[in-house]
């Protein structure tokens, strides 16, 4: 096996040296009857050529990967500068472990410190951790944290939060003594109105809202934060399309207490849903309640600046069952990709990409709304995603659009809510050209008339 340096001869010599008669004897502590007597039913080894051919053939059966696409809903196609993959592919980054030995892990530690800073800048918050698995688990952890901070057990989440995020939150809190309530969104505006949270009381730990929400609608985060704070509850804001930070008022500026986001938009390939990276930011005063790893500044005896993992007493390896979370491995390399992306694009690049997304999405929305029989059912302002209501069933329309025009035109909302048969979610980013948008509009028109 080419990944194993010692040859069979060398292994035989090593066995002799340590006084073990045979390889089989290395496993003497495993009871005889538990040892496998036959080969695993796994195919024989493939060469590099055979392996690549196999995966290329398999990949070719993912027709959606090469289509013109307007899919969003929690994962977004954005342009990724070439250097992102080059830099994260350096051995020194991708083959390193969690930075437990700071003297020989400063590259990783400084990069995380920069990541934490960038997340704070984007979200408008004081502190951020070194990453969570993804946006959905970050949101679930935020709910658990709100319970720890407030010692209250009721949480009200907008029903316009991404349905899969709500499912994950439900799984996480089902044994934590937290009641998860849902606040209905308004079917005209597409937003979650303040009044939807009227059941808030002095047992409410947090209000959870996504903005832009699952339907692309921008929520009135400021008003919701006032609503939450009036009862001493926290406001948790989730963001699935992190590119919106480039244009929209930050949740921090609107009064959020915890901001969680999916960072995939920042230089991370779609890769069928992962690995992505969860962003988690909060206020200074909650530093000791935050889940996950934190990197902080430190100095050596000579006064040289460096970075270390810090406030570790919150974490599982020290506090065990009383830890703030069970998370250990997070999404280090993906956080690095986001860091390289954000630094390459920089302040102006992120603003320009966000602006192009919004302009193109609004152009697409205007053009689609002109097609006879098509409407935009929600009135709230949006960023780069919006819901379209067609004259026919959305799933069939989108299927024929893919088959006949080679365009993935959106996500049929009937996949999540059977009462919305004709609605679909369209996402337009800077990667979609006007030509593609016009083709989408033409396709929708011709296939529905």
């Amino acid at each position, binding site marked *: *096996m080419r990944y194993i340096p010692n040859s069979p001869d060398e292994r035989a010599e090593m066995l002799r040296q340590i006084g073990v008669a045979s390889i089989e004897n290395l496993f003497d502590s495993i009871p005889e009857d538990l040892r496998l007597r036959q080969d695993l039913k796994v195919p024989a080894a493939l060469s590099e050529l055979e392996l690549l051919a196999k995966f290329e053939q398999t990949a070719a059966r993912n027709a959606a990967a090469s289509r013109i696409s307007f899919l969003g809903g929690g994962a977004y196609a954005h342009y990724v500068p070439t250097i992102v993959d080059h830099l*994260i592919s350096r051995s020194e980054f991708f083959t390193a472990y969690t930075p437990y030995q700071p*003297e020989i892990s400063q590259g990783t530690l400084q990069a995380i410190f920069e990541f934490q800073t960038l997340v704070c800048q984007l979200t408008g918050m004081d502190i951020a951790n070194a990453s969570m698995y993804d946006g959905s688990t970050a949101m679930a952890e935020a709910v658990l944290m709100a319970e720890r901070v407030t010692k209250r057990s009721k949480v009200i989440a907008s029903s316009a939060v991404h349905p*899969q995020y709500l499912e994950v939150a439900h799984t996480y809190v089902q044994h934590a003594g937290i009641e998860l309530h849902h606040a209905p969104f308004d079917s005209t505006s597409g937003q979650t109105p303040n009044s939807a949270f009227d059941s808030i009381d002095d047992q409410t730990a947090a209000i959870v809202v996504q903005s832009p929400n699952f339907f692309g609608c921008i929520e009135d985060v400021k008003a919701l934060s006032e609503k939450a704070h009036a009862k001493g509850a926290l406001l948790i804001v989730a963001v699935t399309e992190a590119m919106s930070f480039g244009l929209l008022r930050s949740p921090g500026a609107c009064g959020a207490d915890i901001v969680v986001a999916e960072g995939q938009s920042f230089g991370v390939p779609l890769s069928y849903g992962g690995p992505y990276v969860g962003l988690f930011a909060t206020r200074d005063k909650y530093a000791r309640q935050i889940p996950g790893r934190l990197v902080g500044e430190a100095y050596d005896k000579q006064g040289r600046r460096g970075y270390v993992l810090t406030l570790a007493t919150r974490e599982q390896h020290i506090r065990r069952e009383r830890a703030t979370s069970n998370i250990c491995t997070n999404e280090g390399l993906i956080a690095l990709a986001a860091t390289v992306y954000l630094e390459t694009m920089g302040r102006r690049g992120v603003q320009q990409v966000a602006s192009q997304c919004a302009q193109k999405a609004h152009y697409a929305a205007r053009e689609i709304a002109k097609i006879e029989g098509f409407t935009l059912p929600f009135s709230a302002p949006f960023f780069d995603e919006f819901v379209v209501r067609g004259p026919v069933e959305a799933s069939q329309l989108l299927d024929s659009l893919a088959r006949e025009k080679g365009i993935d035109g959106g996500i049929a909302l009937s996949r999540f809510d059977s009462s919305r048969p004709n609605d679909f979610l369209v996402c337009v980013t800077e990667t979609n050209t006007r030509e593609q948008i016009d083709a989408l509009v033409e396709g929708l028109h011709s296939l529905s008339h």
Partner: protein
Amino acid sequence: MNPKVTTHISHNESLIFERSHPGRAGFSLPPLDVEESALDEIIPRQLQRDDDLAGMPEVTEVDVVRHFTRISTWNYSIDLGLYPLGSCTMKYNSRLNEKVARIAGFANLHPLASEGEAQGALEVIYELQQHLAEITGLPGISLQPAAGAHGEMTGVMIIRAFIDARDGKEASAKRRTMLIPDSAHGTNPASAHLSGFTVRTIRSTPEGLTDLDHLRELCAHGDVAGLMLTNPNTLGLFERNIQKICRIVHEAGGLVYMDGANMNALVGVARPGDMGVDVIHLNLHKTFSTPHGGGGPGSGPCCCTKELEPFLPVPRIVRTESGTGVPARDGSVFKLDFNQPQSIGRVKAFFGNYGMMLRALAYVLTHGHDGLREATEAAVLNARYIAHGLISDYEKPFDAPPMHEVVFTDKRQARKGVHTLDIAKRLIDYGFHPMTIYFPLIVSGAMLIEPTESVGRHELDQFIEAMRSIAREAFEDPDLVLNAPHTTRIGRLDEAAAARKPVLRWKPVQTAQAIAE
């Protein structure tokens, strides 16, 4: 006269924010090709950002490349050499697997693409599940968990859901104890707590194995939902009573969860399913070589018995004979199955860390059945070789021969005031990454060494020689060890001060004038 000594430029690389200069740009975008609306017309002013993203860096592409290239040189990495972190399985990360994960048909595939248009992706998930089922002897698999701890949480929640269904809610509510050995990873109790269990700790015997008498005693209370056991345990020892342990827990009405962190000692040699284990998580970023990336991403598949399968997270990936999309070569079509009423629910959006599944499948197929077993044998042999090489200089607290990792302590060196931390730091001067230190917690001054199969004899000899040399230094020149490392860009950092007044982000330096304004 000595030549003038200066610090290498790469050693002074500052934070990117300190390199930033207004007007520098590292990006280029095509011009906007649609009619531009006034921003206020599409997004009301009060919803727009009002801080102009102040503080975010403005640098060129060259700045970014040099920045990350320079700071990368401050890292140790597997590609540089032995990375013997016990319980972490730092093995070679194949470039071929990286190439596979970057094939456009996978990398550009949206997770909400319709099933029919993502048949290749679903087949990969299904195929990897089949192989992991064979390797563990446990047929029910979900690849959704994103890391080991996430897989643990999933597994423990499955145990809870199973007992709820078996005993009814009322009786099940009396079974809220999770037994965990004192040598376990901290994630085990934390995951048990997340699932609403109370943790009770089982003692280890002086031989470093689970204390059966204590286990029986704890099981006699009638409130045990399960046991979380690492095997080989965190001392690197195979729990030779594993069948008996499983029987005791099962007879007490509980289930056995195995932490699969140490599967690199077992693949192709023995299977948890055959031992009586009910549910296990694997770490694709350990045993199956997906890169650890400086702290993730991981992937923590959860594998269980047929009996527990209905409780796995949704969606499941199932094989059928008919459906939309291009079928696999054998005619199979893959579908997502959401209709699992007993499922614990979803643990992550979409399907898990898919890119890691591709790499792990490439690992399995590149090794084949022979190679998988060969890797296990080589990993155990390497650990035994180190155990043999260090026994004369370091205290080995357990006599039993280790599997894929071995624990030593600083007992002898401590007499000279040299402790495990100092030995670890001195090892850096010899060009090695230190081993895992002060874990497991039950061994005072523990040094847990796991070489993996990805290291040759010559380098093992160098490592052994370095450790023996440090042992000599501890007696002859303890200060040399106490002040290590001497060869790194920075010395030991004051972690206590960092935790007292944490600085967790960069902020612009405020000039007196700016503050006055």
